């Protein structure tokens, strides 16, 4: 019991501490790919500390909701990230929530973020919020349908069970799994506001989505939101790696050696995924906002097709 709790606590802390490093690594690789030196790996930590030290500038008419939201977003994202198996499955509290709950927790975070964007009443906030809910209204069903596919294959929506099933030899190569993987990656790109859906490094009115919503935030509030954004990227990478690269996962209570293997393989998976993300982002261009529905519609159709195939034939 105690050791289980310790592993759970360690994972919660680990995701929190790793998340900025992951972002720093992606930025570094992206910079190197275009032959820039790039900021140091720990720059995101420095940014967070700097933001924490700065004063908060609030708009005159900002309400309590605006001040509470950063903590809510952070809490919901952190809880969601802590429930995804990273280096070990079958954690003490993993049965608290299944994959559907994790998707919905991220939905809660987004709900409050969009509301906070509309709180001050500037055009940018409304613009960001309205585009964000449009993207989410397509990304969320695509994500849920992907969850359905996985759940139908593994016979469970519980992530630990899904991961164990995907690691077992009975899974094999399946068409619907491939479709789910593509859909999940497309959703992950959209949800994390990465290129080509959104560009986290720009403040250009025509294209902003995520940045427009949080434009009014500053200081410690912005630090919380940034940290939540970092956590979300880590969450999606953990999710993809635990479902589609389920090797080396510690299955709970098997001793320090297997835990060490779990941690080492987890870090390797994150590195590979981060490099892939950086390469992809460097290779493609940002698309127009109203092309995004086509992109996500394709994800939705792929996910639906994958689920349909599974319903119709359990062997595909």
């Amino acid at each position, binding site marked *: 019991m105690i050791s289980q709790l310790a592993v759970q606590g360690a994972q919660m802390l680990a995701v929190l501490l790793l998340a900025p490093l992951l972002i720093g690594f992606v930025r570094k690789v992206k910079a190197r790919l275009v032959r820039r030196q790039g900021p140091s790996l720990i720059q995101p930590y420095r940014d967070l500390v700097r933001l924490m030290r700065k004063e908060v500038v609030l708009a005159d008419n900002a309400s309590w909701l605006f001040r509470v939201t950063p*903590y809510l977003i952070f*809490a919901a994202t952190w809880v969601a990230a802590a429930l995804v198996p990273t280096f070990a499955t079958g954690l003490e509290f993993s049965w608290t929530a299944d994959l559907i709950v994790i998707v919905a927790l991220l939905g809660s975070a987004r709900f409050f973020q969009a509301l906070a964007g509309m709180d001050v009443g500037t055009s940018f906030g409304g613009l960001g919020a309205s585009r964000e809910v449009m993207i989410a209204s397509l990304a969320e*069903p695509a994500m849920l349908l992907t969850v359905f596919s996985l759940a139908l294959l593994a016979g469970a929506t519980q992530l630990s069970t899904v991961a164990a099933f995907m690691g077992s030899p009975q899974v094999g190569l399946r068409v619907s799994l491939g479709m789910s993987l593509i859909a999940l990656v497309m959703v992950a790109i959209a949800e994390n506001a990465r290129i080509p859906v959104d560009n986290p490094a720009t403040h250009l009115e025509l294209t902003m989505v995520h940045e427009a919503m949080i434009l009014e935030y500053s200081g410690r509030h912005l630090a919380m939101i940034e940290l939540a954004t970092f956590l979300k990227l880590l969450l999606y990478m953990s999710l993809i790696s635990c479902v589609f690269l389920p090797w080396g996962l510690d299955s709970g209570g098997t001793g320090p050696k297997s835990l060490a293997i779990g941690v080492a393989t987890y870090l390797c998976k994150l590195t590979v995924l981060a490099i892939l993300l950086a390469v992809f982002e460097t290779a493609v261009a940002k698309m127009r906002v109203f092309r995004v529905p086509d992109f996500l519609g394709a994800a939705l159709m792929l996910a639906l097709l994958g689920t349909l195939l599974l319903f119709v034939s359990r062997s595909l």
Partner: protein
Amino acid sequence: MNSTVALLLCGPAAFLATTIMAAGASRLAAATRLVYGATLVISAVLLATAAGHLAGNPGEASATLPLGLPWTGARFRLDGLSAFFLVVVNLGGTITSLYGLGYGRHESLPHRVLPFYPAFLAGMNLVVLANDAFSFLLSWEFMSLASWALVMAHHRDEANRRAGYIYLVMASFGTMALLLAFGLLAGPAGTYAFDAMRTAHPGPFAAGAVLVLMLLGAGSKAGLVPLHAWLPLAHPAAPSHVSALMSGIMTKVAIYGFVRVVFDLLGEPAWWSGVAVLLIGGVTAVLGILHALMEKDLKRLLAYSTIENIGVIFASLGLALAFKANGMPSAAALAFTAALFHVLNHSFFKSLLFFGAGAVLTATGERDMEKLGGLIHRLPVTSFVFLIGCVSISALPPFNGFASEWLVFQAILRSPELPQWGLKVIVPAVGGMLALSAALAAACFVKAFGITFLGRARSAAVERAHEVDRWSLAAMAVLAAFCLLAGILPGFVIDSLSTVTLPLVGERMPVQMAQPWLSIVPIAESRSSYNGLLVFVFITISASLAAFFIHRFASHALRRDIAWGCGFPDAVPAGQYTAVSFAQPIRRVFGGFAFRSRETVDMPAPGALEPARLKVEMHDVAWEIFYQPITGAIDFATERLNHLQFLTIRRYLTLVFLYLVILLLVLALWP
């Protein structure tokens, strides 16, 4: 006669007595308090009785009164299903009466509301208790007419008169369908008692016809697409607490009627009945929420969102039918419990949201979101509880809407075991539609809360607004607490529903309250589990930890300043995003097929001084496809038949004679 049923029947009698008292005394100043106080007490007693029956699980009880048709009498019966719906009706009645104590004082025409309000409650109670077709239909019509009178309370408004007219036509249509359905169920023997119908199983063709007629009859009252056209007109036209009753409770009574006939009286369902109900439910959910997204009238937005939730409930009922038809009682119990849980949840948050809209209406006199904004500063408590309602209805954890939608998704994941190909293809598609409608619901309520309560005030009325009275606030706070409680303790609700599901689908969900940490585990823990309580605790702890950490180690400095307006000083509130512009991206994605919408940009020539204009053209497709041809045909026929009014007496006699001859011929040729 059973004492519980007798007590429950005294309730409607007491409501009717209140109606008579209200009709006499409605012009007195104290009438408002008197009527709502009386309905509050009566509903609370009925609620306690029904809840006691549901919890105590003493089986069925029935009673026959020497009323109604001379040779049948009026039969009433209380079982698990009716006890559950009595709880929903009277919980809604109690809290609405509490709200009415405060809200009713602002009513400009109390004598048009007070007499009908208790009558409406009486009608809904009687529908749920009725045990023969005659009392059922009579109570149903009584409920419809009482609510129609409440819709017409402010009949000087042209829009309300139109709403009332359409409501009346649709209600009559629905009752006609129910009448025919009961006629088929009664068979040639004419057994109007439900007990007799339950044992007489109709043939497959008759059963199919009954299902279609129930979808038309109960579905038109509940708001299934395409029979929903009256709902977004009529529900908002009534005073807000009555809107809450109509949207939150009366639609549930319609669902009760559907469940009573299709799950109870009709016997074993055919597998394709599940397909029909599932498809209609899924389409209703998506179209309802898309319409809601396009609305800028707060109460109409809520009415359209009711249509979405009805769609979710019907989809879940369709799943239950499909499972039941294929002999999978445990899966049917899961889907059926999910549907009933959503019934309860929707009655909570929809009442809460309509109360909130009523509070906004009282404080500002506005329903149009484009004239609201910034109310979070003027109505702090109302905005907080309205926010809880918005989070709950958007199916976000840890609130109640999520718990029931989660159960629906779990039920969908049981459906690959279904043998029929039709179901195998339909169920994942409907699952996708439900996921889409859940995501769109979140978008819709970001808009509803964001435009109404956040941002800057868009009219002077908002700047003068004051928080509403304590009765209304208390009613809303109670509902908000229920939303949270049902979300973090879903196991309690699921276990209470076991007495309802067991007789109707032959199985119940496993006992949930015995699970460690109060999780809910619908099938097996390795398969899926959800613990709303722990999710709530975890979020609270991590948010508090973060806040503590920040306040301990980070800077405390805070400066208030004007928001950056890109260099334009004195930004006008009209420059904010509006309800219409907020929905614009979604309209561009979904509007093409849902509304056949078209946008045209009217650009003036270079140098011309007139402004550029963006014109949006949208169609209510259901109205154009289903209603316009029918009204057109009726108009055409009445035009043609009109000259029959101006015949001479000889021609009338000829017509009568011809009719007689045809009638006799038919009788002679009838085999």
